């Protein structure tokens, strides 16, 4: 009997950590127990993007979209959705526009409406551990087309036509890199995938590799053909075990199918892979440092030129691209550069995947055409700010980027627009901040990160990041001066000019950009010694107003360090020496008896 239904269970990292595997197994057991195991195919896919509401289970062809599923729901999902063909109402996702629960398509969900999926085309649709499913969705057709119908120059021209720019941060035209490497005269060349994803708070590359590993393998083989390389190396963070496992499976399956290895599909072209695990150094995301790390050394950047395209891994010409850049390429080959160019803005074609996180209702992975505005991303897709708080800013570009304030909500997001307003695209982390976040605290957070991750090779970065951090630390303790603010600008500007690699050159960005847009907030810390958001601990103090406290004991029970004392029905007191300023008591008191100052 033919399969009638598909059950897609999200197997992305966020859902996995909330028992997706148990759900998957329970669904199988229940399908068996209820005698429908032959009618339904249960598939574990990559991330659906809507991680906020995970674990997610989707039923096809009905398009039932179940959210926050637990293993105990399996029985009902099988008996209702599969046996009786009805929806399990209580599990269906509803957004504020969707009152008629059972009459909508997944595409109608606001979170997905403005999204266009090229990079994530297969994430959430196929089982990433089965090559057949990738092939069924035109997988490896681009490689076949390239090998038999296109000359290397045709491939590069198609890329040029597409306007594709690197998604790893800098936005360099991909075709130019390939063209340099192709033109370099050398018998041995390499193709490298940068999957080091170091921006803390971003996970686009992780999800792409977990949900659709073959798309990256296929693209790298295409590059190998175009530039004349036979070896691909994937450099991936060791912290991504699931992505590594799926890559290994994918490579093995592609080899078994003759899509990798010697004489691919009888074309005479050879291409194979190696996987290398990063060892926890952010600077290794920088391309020259990454290459030194693959070669088995300390991952320190080297000056450019020479560029990797000409002198890369082991001194050989090397194309190095980011995961998301790679994932675009099979579609560009199949649908043509002109098609790709039709999406996005004039100088930034295609889409961009963002990891939308922070104080946002629908956090998750979103893929939108370049040129989409911040407002559309935050409000239409992201569903607005959590708990109806006020929007404060969005940080893009991680430790290399800057803040976008509410004045930029209608700015179309693309490479050039973001640079023009003092931020940058970066890899695609988008952290939403609300009124409770302190701009000084966030700048200090990024600077601390840069101090820890600076490789120490050049003085402007080694000393500059430390100086900047010390100043921010001083400000957060209420000890900063106006001169300190000026000094940060001077140091930052010098670092941008003098540091050897991108890390040091961009490390001052979060400070410079926040100083520009939130100078008042810095001045509050400096002049008035206050932190309105209550994040700079030395500037906040929680106290209980004895007149308002009714002695309900709630705060004392909430306090994680047990520093609130008092008898029931009598006013309580906080032991200031013990208090870690977590604010739990403040949030818990229903009688407004706790003050924050």
């Amino acid at each position, binding site marked *: 009997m033919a399969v009638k239904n598909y059950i897609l269970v999200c197997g992305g990292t966020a859902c996995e950590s909330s028992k997706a595997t148990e759900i998957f197994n329970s669904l199988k057991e229940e399908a068996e127990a209820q005698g429908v195991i032959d009618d339904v195919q249960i598939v574990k896919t990559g991330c659906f993007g809507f991680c906020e509401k995970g674990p997610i289970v989707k039923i096809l062809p009905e398009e039932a979209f179940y959210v926050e599923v637990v293993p105990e729901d399996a029985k009902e999902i099988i008996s209702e959705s599969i046996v009786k063909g009805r929806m399990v109402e209580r599990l269906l996702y509803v957004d504020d526009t969707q009152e008629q629960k059972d009459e909508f398509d997944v595409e109608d969900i606001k979170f997905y409406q403005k999204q266009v999926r090229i990079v994530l085309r297969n994430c959430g649709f196929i089982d990433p551990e089965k090559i057949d499913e990738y092939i069924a969705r035109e997988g490896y057709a681009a490689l076949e087309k390239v090998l038999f119908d296109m000359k290397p120059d045709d491939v590069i021209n198609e890329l040029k036509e597409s306007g594709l720019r690197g998604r790893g941060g800098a936005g360099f035209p991909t075709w130019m890199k390939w063209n340099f490497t192709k033109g370099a005269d050398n018998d041995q060349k390499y193709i490298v995938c940068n999957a080091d994803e170091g921006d*803390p708070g*971003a996970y686009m590359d992780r999800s792409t590799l977990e949900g659709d590993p073959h798309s990256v393998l296929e693209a790298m083989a295409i590059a190998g053909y175009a530039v004349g390389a036979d070896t691909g190396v994937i450099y991936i963070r060791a912290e991504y075990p699931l992505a590594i496992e799926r890559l290994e499976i994918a490579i093995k399956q592609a080899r078994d199918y003759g899509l990798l290895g010697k004489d691919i599909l009888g074309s005479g072209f050879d291409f194979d892979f190696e996987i290398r695990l990063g*060892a926890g*150094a952010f600077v290794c995301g920088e391309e020259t440092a990454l290459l030194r790390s693959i070669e088995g050394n*300390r991952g320190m950047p080297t000056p450019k030129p020479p560029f990797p395209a000409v002198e890369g891994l082991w001194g050989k010409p090397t194309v190095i691209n980011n995961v998301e850049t790679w994932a675009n390429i099979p579609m560009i080959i199949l649908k043509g550069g002109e098609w790709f160019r039709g999406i996005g803005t004039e100088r930034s074609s295609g889409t961009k995947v963002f990891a939308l996180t922070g104080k946002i209702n629908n*956090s998750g992975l979103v893929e939108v055409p370049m040129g989409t505005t911040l407002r559309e991303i935050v409000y239409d897709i992201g569903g607005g700010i959590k708990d109806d708080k006020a929007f404060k800013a969005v*940080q893009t570009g991680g430790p290399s980027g800057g803040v976008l304030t509410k004045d930029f909500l209608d700015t179309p997001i693309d490479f050039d627009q973001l640079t023009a307003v003092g931020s940058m695209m970066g890899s695609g982390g988008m952290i939403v901040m609300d009124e409770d976040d302190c701009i000084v605290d966030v700048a200090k957070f990024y600077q601390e990160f840069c101090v820890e991750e600076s490789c120490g090779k050049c003085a402007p970065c080694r000393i500059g990041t430390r100086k900047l951090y010390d100043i921010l630390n001083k400000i957060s303790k209420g000890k900063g001066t106006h001169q300190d603010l000026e000094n940060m600008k001077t140091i930052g500007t010098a670092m941008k000019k003098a540091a050897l690699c991108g890390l040091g050159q961009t490390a001052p960005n979060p400070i410079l950009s926040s100083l520009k847009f939130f100078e008042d907030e810095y001045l509050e810390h400096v002049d008035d010694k206050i932190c309105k958001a209550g994040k700079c601990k030395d500037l906040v103090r929680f106290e209980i107003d004895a007149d308002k406290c009714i002695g309900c004991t709630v705060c004392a029970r909430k306090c994680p360090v047990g520093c609130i004392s008092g008898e029931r029905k009598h006013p309580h007191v906080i032991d200031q020496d013990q208090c870690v300023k977590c604010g739990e008591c403040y949030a818990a008191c229903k009688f407004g008896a706790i003050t924050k100052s």
Partner: protein
Amino acid sequence: MSCADCGNIAKEAREIVAEVGSEPEKVIPLLQEIQNRHGYLSQELVEAVAEEIKLPVSRLYGVATFYSQFRFEPIGKNLIKVCKGTACHVAGAEKVYSIISEKLGIEEGETTDDQLFTLESVACLGCCSLAPVVMINDSIYGKLNPAKMGKILKEYADGK
């Protein structure tokens, strides 16, 4: 350390090298394999591997000290990694960290005297939508607050 151990260590070093390779470019994968097996880079084993691949020990340590992944002390029974990435930071990772540190009496990089817990931080665990996130051994705990974290710690302390 008795000499029976020396023999075992040399044997294990040979095993590791046979599995990973002996070229100088394999230094990082070799160190990763040592840490995989023991949770940290034991000095004896690093020395034995260096000897096996005919590189100076200083070369291996030179590489190891560059990367934050490597540890030079044994870890406790449970390895706690607190995410300090941006999403977790704005969601209150600091509070979660403080409560762990407070309850266990250790700071980042330290192990409790009873060898039950080691505390570390990481830059992002890739499940930012669940922020703040903590990973204990292979399990991920998300949407934490100090109270929830305290409860989880207690479960582990009670022998989970």
